């Protein structure tokens, strides 16, 4: 007799498994090293590559990756790029590497990665893969001693909006979305196989000071901060341009409304006159009149992205300043002995 508490096989098979939300991205040390090597070799040019791994429950495991060659803007090379990908996947399959694409990685320069292209790539990937993630690595930040590796995902509500390509104020207010909600950052865990940790423990004993520390204790953070501020100022200019667009739109809208009111008044007085003369009143609306044409509202996507970038730069500046404070006080203490 089947246990009434247990579900029958048919029930389980037919019940749709709701995907648990993605909570953690687990990367292998090997993939981290590969990403770093690739991005560093080609910096300051921006490079991309593919992530391979497994999608298990609420953890997305990234076990390997391979880089993409730098593509020139040429139509014939598109097919070559696809062939390269298929070749690599096939070859890696033969040596038992996970053949499953789970996303892609790209390098960035000082955190200026929020562009429309990123969103479009996300949408492209999302059509084929249920869960994909984008890993962003910043080689210039890493020179300051911080491992600048981030895992990003588009939030679901944003994806719905993007599909409908509708970024008017109404819709956004309805969903209560602001610029923070576009990208979701997912925490990263790093894992290593037992063999490799044995090797690393053996080959590189617990040295008291590492290169990372040397990088962090460097007093000169000038150039990095300068570039950050530079980008910040440029983004503020962009934001200003966007706000100007909105202001223009609002002005147009209010002007149009005033025109509509005036026209309506005229119609009403005309109608009164006609009623007095005993004729048919004219309709109060006339859609063929150009002043009734609804003015399209400018999309807010750009301003959201720019806002995101600015927030990013601010965060970076905060981080660097915090580090510099510690360094300066350390210097002071050292000097006092």
């Amino acid at each position, binding site marked *: 007799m089947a246990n009434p508490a247990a579900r029958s096989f048919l029930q389980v098979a037919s019940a749709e498994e709701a995907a648990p939300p993605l909570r953690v991205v687990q990367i*292998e040390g*090997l993939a*981290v*090293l*590969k990403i*770093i*090597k*690739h991005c560093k070799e080609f910096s300051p040019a921006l490079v991309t590559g593919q992530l391979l791994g497994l999608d298990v429950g609420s953890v997305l495991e990234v076990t390997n990756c391979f*880089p993409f*060659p730098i593509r020139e803007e040429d139509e014939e090379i598109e097919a070559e790029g696809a062939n*390269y990908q298929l*070749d690599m996947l096939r070859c890696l399959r*033969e*040596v038992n590497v996970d053949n499953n694409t789970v996303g892609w990685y790209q390098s960035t320069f000082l955190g200026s990665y929020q562009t429309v292209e990123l969103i479009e790539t996300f949408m492209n990937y999302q059509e084929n893969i249920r869960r994909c993630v984008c890993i962003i690595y910043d080689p210039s930040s890493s020179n*300051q*001693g*911080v491992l600048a*590796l981030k895992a990003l995902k588009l939030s679901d509500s944003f994806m719905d909006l993007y599909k409908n390509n509708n970024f008017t*104020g109404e819709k956004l*207010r309805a969903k209560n979305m602001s610029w923070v909600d576009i990208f979701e950052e997912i*925490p990263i*865990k*790093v*894992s*290593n*196989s037992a*063999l*490799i*940790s044995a*090797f*690393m423990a053996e*080959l590189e004993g617990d*040295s*008291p*000071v*590492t290169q*990372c*520390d040397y990088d*962090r204790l460097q007093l000169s953070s000038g150039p990095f901060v300068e570039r950050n501020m530079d980008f*910040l100022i440029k983004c*503020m200019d962009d*934001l200003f341009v966007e*706000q100007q667009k909105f202001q223009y739109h609002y002005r147009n809208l*209010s002007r149009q409304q005033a025109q509509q009111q005036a026209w309506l008044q005229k119609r009403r007085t005309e109608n009164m006159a006609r009623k007095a003369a005993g004729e048919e009143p004219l309709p109060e609306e006339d859609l063929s009149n150009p002043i009734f044409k609804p003015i399209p509202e400018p999309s807010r996507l750009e301003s959201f992205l720019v*806002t995101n970038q*600015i927030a990013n*730069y*601010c965060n970076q*500046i*905060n*981080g660097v*300043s*915090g*580090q510099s*404070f510690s360094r300066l006080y*350390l*210097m*002071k203490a*050292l*000097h006092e002995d």
Partner: protein
Amino acid sequence: MYAACRGLSSPNETLILHLPRPRSKSPLSREIGAGATSRMAASVDTVLQFSSSTELSARVQPLVIFNICDCYVRRPDQAERVIGTLLGSILPDGTVDIRNSYAIPHNEFSDQVALDIEYHHNMLLSHQKVNPKEVIVGWYSTGFGVSGGSALIHEFYSREVTNPVHLTVDTGFNNGHASIKAYVSTNLSLGDRPLATQFQEIHVDLRMVEAERVGLDILKKQTVDKLPNDLDGMEATMQRLLSLVDSVYEYVDNVVEGRIPADNNIGRFIADSVASIPKLSDLDKLVNDSIQDHLLMLYLSSITRTQLSLAEKLNTAAQIL
């Protein structure tokens, strides 16, 4: 799938790379310059290994080790070891810089070794599309020491590149510790008959600088739950510095009290480092100026964020019309 290649003395043309083992089995004992230590394997084939006496050396990036270990863990069940190609470049001073690697499926029988050459070429082309500067510099295998089959594979690779480097990574920890060794080969021949291949060990330099940058803690442990952010890392660095200063202090104490004999070199190093603190008369002013600059930047970034939230409210959240 396997490319056609004629072996040393295979009678007909086959589709697999047949590399029959050399027939000579007598132990060779020769004296080669200074520092010759010969070691005989207890198996049928004799393997001679000499310690290096040349200036050739190999530099290995940590990514290569990671790759090899990962391939070893993923090898098919019946294979005992993994074989693959090493990519890199040769530096102008002769050092071989090994930067990347990939595994090649292979089959090893009792007296034959079969390598998938087409796979090897495909992967090489793919890798070169990304990084055209990386060329074949040798090959690797897991397992300890050089075996008879390795000589055949080495000969195949020497047809692709002059003087290939053979890297062995001991994943079995045979000697109780990890050993990574590199060899180059020279052919020993008696007149016209090729007799044996002599593998000479060369110095291996493990450049761990990149791994250190990533953070050895991340790469050493089996799981790391959180990537450290700026302030965490700063804290860790300062603690390490503090422990360094403490140990130097302890050492100086011990020497002064006579517990440890003084070492002049260490003393000179300590004196040098202490003397390298610059004597700036107005260091206070400099430090205060820097602090003020940073505070100003923090203030600016906070203002920017306030501006952002205001703009947000005006543009989206508020309903004007």
